[in-house]
């Protein structure tokens, strides 16, 4: 025992293995500090604040019908928006990667604008267009469809802000899917449709999942653009982040943190699930070879 301990004294930590890359301790220490300061401490503060309420108080605050309504609106619209973004974002990425056409670079640059635009500006612009007297809204008004001031408007705003996440995650992977694989599929007798559904889309699945997760997370947390277009009717088009803000204005800090904690838990569960699916598919298919 003693000889073993003498020969491997540095293995005591278990993390530290001999490695040619130096600085493991330093970088891990820095990473943990940074991670704590920026992410962990605010989240823990949130949890502690809401824990002050006790389990009964927490459940009571959480089961408030208006809270449940706003959570439902937030998550359902975010899921719809992320799903729509995945379909059309994939299509956009496909066009940008596969075809060469005049203005492609400008088109490509414009995709990023929702990243940069202040969300309030986006919200006001979208409201103006989709309001019943706006350019787009006027087209739908005769059909009896209202977009602005309904959950449909929320979905539109979420699509707007989430699209670049999907396009930008799929684009590089699509560039990596070699043309040879498509040709191989064709030489084996597969038609275009079979090549796309059986060869290309499955190899994009991990990227599509990532894009979905990012767009979804962004949509759930979005506030600025949605409050303009949503109409904010409780139980119909009031999103959870707005309800948090309302609680804050009522000086009901605990009520606000309770909603925040529930949102966090649901988001975390969904993102964890997506990450697990990805890890599983990566370990199967391998990456980058």
């Amino acid at each position, binding site marked *: 025992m003693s000889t073993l301990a003498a020969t491997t004294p540095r293995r005591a930590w278990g993390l530290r293995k001999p490695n040619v890359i130096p600085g493991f301790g330093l970088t891990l220490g820095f990473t943990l500090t940074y991670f704590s300061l920026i992410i962990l401490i605010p989240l823990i503060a949130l949890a502690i604040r809401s824990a002050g309420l006790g389990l009964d108080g927490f459940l009571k605050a959480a089961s408030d019908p208006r809270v449940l309504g706003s959570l439902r609106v937030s998550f359902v619209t975010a899921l719809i928006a992320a799903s729509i973004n995945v379909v059309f974002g994939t299509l956009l990425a496909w066009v940008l990667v596969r075809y060469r056409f005049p203005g492609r670079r400008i088109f490509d640059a414009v995709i990023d604008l929702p990243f940069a635009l202040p969300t309030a500006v986006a919200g006001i612009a979208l409201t103006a267009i989709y309001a019943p007297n706006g350019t787009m809204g006027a087209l739908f008004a005769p059909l009896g469809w209202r977009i602005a001031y309904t959950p449909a408007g929320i979905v539109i705003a979420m699509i707007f802000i989430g699209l670049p996440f999907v396009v930008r995650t799929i684009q590089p992977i699509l560039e990596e899917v*070699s043309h040879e694989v498509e040709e191989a599929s064709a030489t084996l007798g597969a038609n275009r449709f079979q090549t796309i559904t059986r060869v290309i889309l499955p190899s994009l699945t991990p990227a599509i999942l990532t894009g979905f997760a990012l767009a979804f997370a962004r949509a759930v947390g979005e506030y600025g653009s949605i409050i303009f277009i949503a109409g904010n009717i409780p139980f119909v088009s009031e999103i959870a982040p707005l309800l948090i803000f309302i609680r804050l204005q009522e000086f009901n800090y605990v009520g606000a943190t309770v909603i925040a904690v529930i949102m966090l838990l649901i988001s975390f569960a969904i993102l964890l699930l997506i990450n697990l699916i990805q890890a599983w598919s990566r370990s199967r298919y*391998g990456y980058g070879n």
Partner: protein
Amino acid sequence: MEVRVQNVRKEFDRFPALHDVSLDIRSGELIALLGPSGSGKTTLLRLIAGLEMPTAGRIFFGDTDASEKTVQERNIGFVFQHYALFRHMTILENISFGLKVRPRATRPPAGEIRRRALELLDLVQLAGLEKRYPNQLSGGQRQRVALARALAIEPAVLLLDEPFGALDAQVRRELRKWLREIHDRTGHTTVFVTHDQEEALELSDRLCVMSQGRIEQVGTPDDVYDHPTSPFVFGFIGESSELPVTVQNNEVWLGGRPLGLPAGDSQPGKARLFFRPHDVELVQADAALTGAVNTARRVGGTRRVELTISGANQPVEVDLPFDHPATENAALTFRPRRWKLFPAA
């Protein structure tokens, strides 16, 4: 199935990649398209496959004109240099893909597809790996899977684009032998592209040497090696030494001296003399090549000597027995045993 390529031309954006190429591929033969990069060999293979369409000319599979047919209709097996396996599918799924995508009318039942895929897996000596994914296999194994996948559709012609190009030397030699065995067993008409002359000479029934979008020579390995019909082929296949000479009075001259080599039916005037470094004999004569040794290196069982030939400015290489005491600046007199004259361009 025999394949006839008839006066095919291919241009990419007005840049010609193939000029008026014709080639008859016999049924059941293993033919190599050999040439340096940019010679058009891969383009020719892709034209036969239908992955590219010719600018002009026709391609026949047997008696049917395949020029207008799509890749899918041509029923060819294609093996890519970088395998191009579907990495989200298991090995078994990869191999059975070609059968599974067939329209219902011609698709074999699922059990039959599985049986055939397993049989092919056995043929490529990978039995037991059907549940693995491509990234769990080595390069050599992946290329075997790619071949099994191509064979699964019972192709009319098997086309291989630098199939061993991405593998290391050891595996490459192994797979070469193995491909020959598979070919002899299955009897598919096989065309493969390579830039490795050793591979082409060892593996093929016939080779087609290409350069700059043209076919230089087609023939058996012996034929092409022993009777090259152009300076390019002489220089490209095997090792060669070249000297600028003149033909006069039916003799070959260099630097005002006859070399003791009859010129045969070559036209008088400037010419290029080609010979193999290993195909020379040392002589005691005035009418021969003489040169001073620059360097002498032991290469395997021979001694490779670089000489500066008097009367010519360029160095040439010859092979001597390894125990020949060639030292620097020593003078050597020799004649090629076999040689070939080409008119100077």
